[in-house]
């Protein structure tokens, strides 16, 4: 076994020899071969560059960033349309009496809506949601529409794209749980924010 009996003085190979020059009294240099695995990483990266560049920039086989995301968003939009829940007034009222829907809606409301409408829904920057005054319509389907598309001029963000139809439905159900079918709906012109002094 060669490993068991080390040769005391291996003959110096070319690369074990020091380069003749000495710097600052004691700095010397070997001139060892470049490790093969290291050269492979270098050549591998160069080959990858050629292939990648050919694929995307010369042959245009891959999609550009914008085209790729446009395509993915179109698929998402299609799925959303296909999965769109029924949002007529009757079903929304029904959901507002379902504790599972209302609880899920409460969680989303408190994290997303309460900063403007308060946890009690009594309004601050955004309007009161428990009184019977509505600015953009008090019918369930109108509330759903307001949450989904927002009222940008008044600072109500469009939550549909961010929350998705399911969460919006739950939030609307939660808001409606403070109301009952057939209650009076008053029209309000605008909301004057209530701000802490």
């Amino acid at each position, binding site marked *: 076994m060669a490993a068991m009996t080390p040769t005391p003085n291996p003959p110096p190979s070319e690369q074990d020899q020091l380069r003749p020059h000495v710097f*600052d009294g004691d700095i010397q240099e070997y001139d*060892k071969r470049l490790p093969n695995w*290291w050269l492979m990483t270098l050549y591998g990266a160069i080959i990858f560059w050629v292939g990648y560049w050919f694929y995307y920039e010369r042959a245009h086989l891959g999609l550009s960033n914008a085209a790729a995301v446009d395509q993915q968003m179109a698929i998402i939009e299609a799925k959303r349309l296909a999965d769109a829940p029924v949002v007529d007034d009757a079903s929304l009222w029904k959901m507002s009496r379902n504790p599972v829907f209302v609880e899920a809606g409460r969680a989303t409301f408190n994290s997303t809506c309460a*900063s403007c409408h308060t946890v009690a829904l009594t309004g601050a920057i955004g309007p009161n949601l428990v009184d019977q005054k509505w600015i953009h319509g008090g019918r369930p389907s109108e509330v759903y529409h307001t949450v989904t598309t927002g009222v*940008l001029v008044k600072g109500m963000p469009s939550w549909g794209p961010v929350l998705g139809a399911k969460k919006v439905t739950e939030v609307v159900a939660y808001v409606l749980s403070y109301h009952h079918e057939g209650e009076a709906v008053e029209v309000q012109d605008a909301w004057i924010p209530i701000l802490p002094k």
Partner: protein
Amino acid sequence: MSEQKITIEYNDKIVRYFLLATVIWGAVGMLVGVLIASQLNFWQMNFSTPWLTFGRLRPLHTNAAIFAFVGNMMFAGVYYSTQRLCRARLASDFLSWVHFWGWQLIIVSAAITLPLGLTRGKEYAELIWPINIAVALIWVVFAVNFFWTLARRREPALYVALWFYIATIVTVAMLYIVNHLSIPTSLLHSYPVFSGVQDGLVQWWYGHNAVAFFLTTPILGIMYYYLPKAAGRPVYSYRLSVVHFWSLVFVYIWAGPHHLLNTALPGWLQNLGMTFSLMLWAPSWGGMLNGLLTLRGAWDKLRTDPVLKFFAAGVTFYGMSTFEGPLLSIKSVNALAHYTDWIIAHVHGGTLGWNGFMAAGMIYWLLPRLWSKPLHSVSLANLHFWIGTVGILLYMGAMWTSGITQGLMLNATTDHGTVLAYPNFLDTLNTIRPLMLMRVVGGGLYLTGWLVLVYNLVRTIRGAQPVNGTIEVVVETPAPETKMSLAGTFLNAPIVFCILAVVFGNMWMLGGNLVSTIGLVGGIMSLIALYALVPSRKSLWNGWYEKLLLNALPFTLLTFVSVAAGGLIQIVPTIIMQKPKNVEDRIQVPYTPLELAGRDLYVREGCYNCHSQMIRTLVPDVLRYGPYSRLGESIYDHPFQWGSKRTGPDLARVGGKYPDVWHIRHMENPRSISVGSNMPNYPWLLSNNLDISTLPSKLKVQRLLGVPYPAQSAQEIFDEVGSQQRTISRDLRLAGAYVAPEKEIIALVAYLQTLGKSVPVQPATH
């Protein structure tokens, strides 16, 4: 020939000064780092005070760490080793002192201006224009002093450490000047000449290569001098030095666009940035290998010698960071990691692990030699090593976990991929809070280790006699036949092959079909020719390179050409092409004067340190923030504010999303609206009056830079500002939240409400 011997005394006093400055500024930079890390977890630590908020202190931290800490360390290390590698005293004591005091003055002015909110709004390039000029001048002083010393060297050949110093000096000058090109609007304020995508490209060409040529190449040079000295072992491989030096300086420059992956930056630049970053892996590891393999035969000394411990760990961290860098440059990895704490982990592996540990090793090695007294305590140095190592590991472990966790949460979707799983950004922020706290602990430990070094240093030099190295040299004149002419520099096979490779490569990459084919054929033929010629010409070419090492000026020239290539090919076409008239799809509407004033406040408060303005071409970004940002939507932004970190959400389309009153309350106290937010309070924006006196000169400069503002008199500008201020203030009054028109917050709200309000471009009629 009669041999006349003289004794030279090295200028080690300047080294001692730079060394002490390193130690002091290192402590300051790390202390500010621990403070701002704490602010991220405890918003109260911003003290609702302008000059103590995160947005102003984070630039102080980065500038202190890079330019004050590593800068002084570099100067100490370079000056000590260059004199010895040249066997010559530094050329000018006067220039050395100008360099030292000039640099410290720059640092002090940075430390004053940054907390005051005087900033250019570009990362690691925040300092205002008068300081920029001072930096450029002092850098020239450094360069003159260095090259003058090289010219007077008694050691004919340039050792590898000097190659890296040369690359550093030349490249930093080029990067710094181009990225700081600005037009002043007043003594304390300027607008960068580039805007939008151009500014982004130039900024990250600079930012990435500041890492390369300020934090990497000088430290590699320092490694090549101090590590073999400390280990008492020869450098592992000269030819590895040659290959990795040239490949590193050439490739590094191209990789800048990897900071802008999946953004509005044109796709070809992103692909260049990504592929060149991958090609950077091997050249970087060449340096690590030469460092670690030099320790072969000296590993036993690691047990006892803290210097070698620091060097071995530092080089290992270098290897880790330079593997992580290419990994993060892969577009799909970047989609997860960008804007998160993973990047913070990555840069701190470099600064704490590589720069900090190499600095510590160098300081412990230099102390006994500069003060002629043994180190006060080897045990304390070992303690420093272990505290520092545990600190880095905690820091990086925390930030990796935090970055990946938040990245996964931000990108997560439910309902068949149609809806964000965590639509509320704050949910993701509050998930990583324990990790942010762990980061503070890690950083605090690292700082503690550094303070142990400070104590050890004080105890070592107290009562010690400063000593300057001397050397006896033979007076001789260099042999004339070693001089290399300009033709000899460029007209020789190795350089011609390199030039052919770059030219053919670029023709293939960027040319039209014909040019591209010529490039491909030419490239393949050059490769074949090279392959055929190497065996017979190898020794000839080696001889040429040995001769080049005797010629500092040609060497410097070749270095400059190799670093300039990448920048030219990326930046010039972008500046020529990305003009408003060439923009497709959507284009920005120029800001009103009030909105511009608000934007300058946004820059002053350093909002870009936590908020991006760039919705990437990625589904989770589009779902969260709206349609992806178009190139034309920031085309008038001097400086661009795309950002690099999202501690808070992206703001590219925040305009019109919330009412004005929301922003007023949110800026006054973010937690009154966003429960759990870590954003500082900005009460002064509600009490300070907006300074509009500088607006006319600001608009004049904007017009000069090509933003289509009409020529207006100062009075017309003030009238326009006043009218918009009054409109916003009146609307706020109606909303029950009156703020006087002249307050700063009105301008900031005007700016925020216009973000993302671009218009479609009319298709050009032919």
